[in-house]
């Protein structure tokens, strides 16, 4: 049976490790993956009028991140039946709960030690998920703290 899983990301390659390890530990059934990115809505009226999530998401995807997603899709060709990125704007527990219900999410995976690096206009969903749900699953992976640079690099996905 297909499972829907929800994973918060920050459009950096490293945050995709949650997905990688979540799928590695799964039993191999197909998944519908929803990557979620949380940011505040603009309050300018023109921005709201011409609001299009597709173009917003497209502007955030770096070539490195795109490559990393492709690598994962190739690696888990059978397990990732569908992969989509969603924007989330409601910084409330109820909003998040409703999102989870609407998308019929079966499981939520969050990183245990990795901190999402959110810019000023965005907010960290991991803490809200921790506060809202009790049945989320935490994923941890070895992080190269000494070599952590500000630059996003594809090698952060290849880290075993």
């Amino acid at each position, binding site marked *: 049976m297909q499972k829907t899983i929800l994973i918060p990301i920050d459009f950096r390659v490293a945050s995709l490790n949650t997905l990688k390890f979540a799928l590695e530990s799964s039993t191999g059934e197909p998944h519908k993956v929803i990557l979620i990115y949380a940011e505040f809505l603009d309050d300018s009226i023109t921005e709201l009028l011409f609001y299009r999530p597709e173009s917003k998401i497209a502007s955030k995807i770096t070539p490195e991140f795109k490559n990393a997603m492709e*690598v*994962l899709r190739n*690696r888990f060709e059978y397990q990732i039946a569908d992969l989509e990125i969603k924007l989330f704007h409601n910084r409330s527990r109820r909003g998040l709960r409703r999102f989870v219900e609407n998308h019929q999410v079966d499981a939520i995976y969050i990183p245990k030690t990795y901190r999402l690096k959110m810019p000023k206009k965005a907010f960290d969903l991991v803490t809200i998920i921790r506060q809202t749900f009790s049945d989320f699953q935490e994923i941890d992976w070895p992080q190269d703290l000494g070599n952590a640079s500000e630059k996003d*690099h594809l090698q952060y996905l*290849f880290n075993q």
Partner: protein
Amino acid sequence: MKTQTKIAVSLVVFNIGLLLLFGIGIYFFLNEYSYVDFYKRLETRATIGAKYNLKIDSANAEAFKKVREQHLEKLEAEKEHIIKISPEVSLEQQASTYHLPLSLLQDLLKDGRARYQEGSKFYGGIKLRHNNATYLSIVSANSRFVSHHLTFLRNILLWGFLFIVVVTVYLSIYFSKHFFDPIREMIDKVKQISTESIHLRLKEPENNNEISELASTFNDLLNRIETAFETQKNFISNASHELATPLTAIMGEADVALIKERKPEEYQNVLHNVLTQAERLNQITKSLLFLAQTGYKGKKIVFEILRTDELIWEVKELIDRLNPDNKILVDLSLLPEDPKKLKINGNRQLLHLALANILNNACKYSHNKPVSVHIGASQEQVLLFIKDQGIGIPESELPFIYDPFFRASNTRLFEGYGIGLPLARNIIKLHNGTLLVTSKANSGTSVQINFPLAKLIK
């Protein structure tokens, strides 16, 4: 002809051509229209005139006259003629009595309607029958429109045309000169740059137009040329040093041996040393030759479809034989499920050489600490990562690592000539791949190699 003059001339010619066409068109069509219109007016007057002069509609004849006098504007030099055609009087006589052109009367008799022009005087008429007699009703008048308005229009058009020609010529010359100013400036600047002053750069204008793009392209080119210059200089000094060292050793050994008579063992020893140095020299020249061959694209190299993971295993086996202490770990956790995504177009020997060089370096400069090799694939590329925990490369020296014979400052304790990495990069370039080295001194080096996926027919 200079581009500048070309632009000016073609602008002027096109503009004047279009303008001429426009002016002549206006004049011609208005002229045609005004004639047609004026003849129609004359004919209407001739019809009405005939009606009241001949009292065709006797009840309304007076009314017609009134209407005509009250509502139809009197034309300039308007004259009405009603001519009764009778067999006794010839047309020529009629024409001379009424001072009318003969051809008009002939046409009228023949067709029933006729038009005639004599200078600015226009004639229009109709033929009609009344009480068993044939009449010709003719009205003649001067067309004020043709004589005054059209001439006025022609003058306006002519003067306007002249004015615009002058303006166009001036503007074309001005703009063609002005547009090329930055280019001329750039030419002057580029002329100043020679091999001695290759560090000079062009000024890039702030606004983002073609000129600034050209300037930045020039600057990029100069940057590359400068780097190539530097590389060349480095290469020559490094190469001569590398080649001179074994040669000096050989000469020194031979010199010392020849000072006096020696025992056969001593000669053997000297010859052995000479042989070692000569072998080293041979090694260097061979690898130089190989480097030159891979850098030169004229030679045909046979490509075949290869699986990247197989390549890695083969290279690992090779290194296991040469250096049994190595700890190369191949990570397959991101290996794509579809093996097609691992296939690349390449030459097996060359790729072996490149990968062996890189893996060997990783093992060598990390004192056989674990080296991890990761394989993954995106939609278009196979990605290889080779990470070691070795001595790394100082950040300031990273730009030079692809220069032949260059060796980082912290590699004095390791053997090598500095040809392996440039060679690997040349080979990867031959395969349209990219090689990316990131490193930090004392914490390790990570090499990323991307190869484009082979396009397989499905």
